[in-house]
């Protein structure tokens, strides 16, 4: 074969192996390009020498084994194990390139899949067509008396020869009858269409009846094809899914990290968060279910009673229909359930009024004034305050039937908002200390408004970034509040507040750390110099 031909063939092999990821075996090569098996092996050898690395080579070793019962053995070995396998042979063994491929397939059947399909196609060609398998052109064994009959009718004269060939078969047969992986040494007939049934080849060399041999196997190759083809696509799909979920999910995890997570405070942000985050959404559903259960049990003691979660989570939820902030009880520490002292409700009223001013920094200063006003108002409003919860209980039940969270009822704000907040909070275990609080206040027009508010956010619901400082302010404001109120407050509020502030500062701290003010984080500029 000329040099140019060799080169072009090597290019072909390269594109087959690296682009189409095909297993290129010498048999396949020989039949595809109508070259002899020897030539094909030589080409593959040359190809392997040129392209070391980036591809996997399977060698065919043949020789006598070292065992006590010497047997002729042919074995396919991947490149890394070549030396090891050679040790098992007695003396010299022949080492030839069997196939090259981009990677060693998991299923060894893939190794001869390509050539099997090829053989099948060759035999499917109409009988009048001559091809390399039918005319036995590259076979090392040939019989000049045997002629191919294009019509496919076995010539009478051929039969004796078949027998004689078959007779010589047995001597070879121990060589040839190898597990399907093994190749036939070149010196022996290379005409094996299907490296699996070698004896039949002998017939097929002689006339077209070889077809039957292949037909026996036809089911197999197609089945094989079906098996092997879907696998890659399936995998691809799986991979695609993975990658897409990987990218989609990584964002979620990014926000989901307790330390980096900014507190979701603005309502729209939370909604979008929930939508974009399926993982959280499912958890929502779960937590909602929990809530629904809780709700059932809690409906009885509707007012001012704390619902207790069965779970160990330290979240606290306060259903406080008299809407007092100050009176929040941690679920972790079962506290006095009924805290509906008139004083508390007074405080609430004050608070809620303050809220309407929306100016929280000023809250503390305003408070004394407000309180006095309210002290008078309170008693008048108090009764009203109690009523709405009852009405709301219908809303509550609606909520639960929606599968959404349960116990909150809002007159003025959308229930879903609360639900989202609620569930989002539950999702992050790192933030156990959030509180949900019912608040009733009188708005400017004199209407009663009951809302569920997340404590800690209520002061600045619009600001997405609640930093530690602000929370601390808030906590301080509340404390001031407490003190200012003439009535003694339960110990509960006092204990609660510290967690709220510490929580906030903790978050602030970790945020900073993530902002790479971490002293341990190296700087890329210390590695690469400016040009």
């Amino acid at each position, binding site marked *: 074969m000329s040099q140019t031909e060799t080169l072009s063939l090597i290019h072909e092999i390269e594109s087959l192996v690296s682009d189409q*990821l095909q297993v290129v075996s010498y048999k396949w090569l020989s039949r595809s390009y109508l070259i002899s098996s020897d030539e094909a092996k030589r080409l593959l050898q040359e190809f392997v020498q040129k392209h070391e690395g980036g591809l*996997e080579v399977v060698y065919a070793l043949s020789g006598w084994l070292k065992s006590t019962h010497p047997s002729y053995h042919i074995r396919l070995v991947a490149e890394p194990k070549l030396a090891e396998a050679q040790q098992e042979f007695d003396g010299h063994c022949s080492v030839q390139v069997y196939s090259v491929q*981009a*990677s*060693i*397939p*998991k*299923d060894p059947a*893939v190794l001869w899949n390509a050539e099997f399909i090829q053989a099948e196609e060759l035999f499917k060609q109409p009988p009048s067509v001559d091809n390399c398998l039918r005319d036995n052109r590259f076979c090392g064994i040939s019989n000049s008396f045997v002629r191919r009959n294009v019509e496919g009718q076995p010539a009478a004269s051929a039969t004796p020869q078949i027998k004689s060939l078959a007779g010589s078969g047995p001597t070879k047969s121990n060589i040839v009858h190898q597990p399907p992986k093994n190749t036939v040494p070149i010196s022996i007939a290379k005409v094996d269409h299907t490296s699996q049934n070698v004896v039949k080849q002998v017939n097929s060399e002689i006339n077209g009846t070889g077809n039957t041999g292949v037909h026996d196997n036809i089911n197999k190759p197609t089945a094989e094809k079906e098996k092997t083809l879907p*696998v*890659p696509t399936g*995998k691809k799909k799986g*991979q695609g899914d*993975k*990658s*897409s979920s*990987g*990218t989609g*999910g*990584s964002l979620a*995890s*990014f926000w*989901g*990290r*307790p*330390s*980096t997570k900014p507190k979701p405070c603005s309502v729209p942000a939370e909604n979008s968060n929930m939508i974009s985050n399926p993982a959280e959404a499912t958890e929502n559903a779960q937590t909602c279910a929990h809530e629904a259960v809780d709700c059932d049990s809690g409906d009885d003691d509707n007012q001012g009673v704390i619902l207790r979660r069965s779970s160990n989570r330290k979240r606290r939820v306060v259903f406080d229909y008299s809407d007092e902030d100050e009176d929040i009880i941690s679920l972790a520490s079962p506290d006095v359930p009924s805290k509906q002292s008139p004083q508390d409700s007074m405080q609430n009223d004050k608070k809620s009024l303050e809220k309407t001013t929306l100016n929280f920094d000023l809250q503390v200063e305003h408070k004394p004034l407000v309180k006095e006003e309210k002290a008078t108002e309170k008693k008048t409003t108090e009764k009203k305050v109690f009523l709405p919860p009852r009405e709301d209980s219908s809303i509550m039940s609606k909520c639960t039937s929606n599968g959404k969270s349960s116990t909150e009822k809002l007159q003025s704000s959308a229930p879903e908002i609360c639900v989202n907040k609620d569930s989002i909070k539950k999702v992050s*275990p*790192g933030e156990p200390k959030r509180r949900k609080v019912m608040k009733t206040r009188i708005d400017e027009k004199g209407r009663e408004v009951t809302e569920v508010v997340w404590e800690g956010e209520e002061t600045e619901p619009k600001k997405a970034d609640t930093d530690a400082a602000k929370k601390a302010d808030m906590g301080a404001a509340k404390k001031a509040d407490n003190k200012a109120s003439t009535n003694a407050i339960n110990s509960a509020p006092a204990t609660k507040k510290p967690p709220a502030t510490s929580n906030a500062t903790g978050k602030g701290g*970790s945020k900073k*750390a*993530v*902002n*790479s003010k*971490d002293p*341990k*984080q*190296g*700087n*890329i*500029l*210390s*590695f*690469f*110099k*400016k*040009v």
Partner: protein
Amino acid sequence: MLELRLVQGSLLKKVLESIKELVNDANFDCSSTGFSLQAMDSSHVALVALLLRSEGFEHYRCDRNLSMGMNLNNMAKMLKCAGNDDIITIKADDGSDTVTFMFESPTQDKISDFEMKLMDIDSEHLGIPEAEYHAIVRMPSAEFARICKDLSSIGDTVVIAVSKEGVKFSTKGDIGSANIVCRQNTTVDKPEEATVIEMNEPVALQFALRYMNSFTKATPLSSSVTISLSNELPVVVEYKIAEMGYVRFYLAPKIEEDEEETKPQV
């Protein structure tokens, strides 16, 4: 005059999606060899290097070297207006302060022009030396993304340790710790599914997962990712862009405490 025509427009979209989280503004450098970008994140901890070679474009004309400062978020916004099958052409005139993105639908029945204002950016171009890495790990990119994502739910940092055993990703957090070990695996049907570990000497380095997670935004660009590690160098996370180039992310390791202690003594 600059005119780059990219038939596979979705590629550019993916590139932008992969780097815009890390870098806000950056200079795109166009030369006769290709379209490239190098930029650091605002905290100077990570660096991204992008190269799209001129051969990957259907048509590439760049009369003189040109550096175009762009806000990557704005650029991504414009590229989002291109369909996934659209052909994207980037055009700019010498001395102009705008760049034009032209999107052609595959059937040529819709052509959109988006003109974006350029900006002046002080570029700090860094020289990245060629280096021998102690360990190079190639693995499926989706697998890597999954690992980073999973670990970031446990802790803030990941220790990537390459040994004879394989590559180990480990983290620790308030709720516990996690270790993921990937072994070399080349017996797969497709080479991109293989996990290949080349190791000259064992390496263990600690990195902020936050950055790793933003690197994995490039996962759609390539089915495999190459992670190169050396003890005294930033890690390189490389996503090859088929037949065109690459996106490489460099991330400075976290300095381990005992190292800090030993250094002063020396």
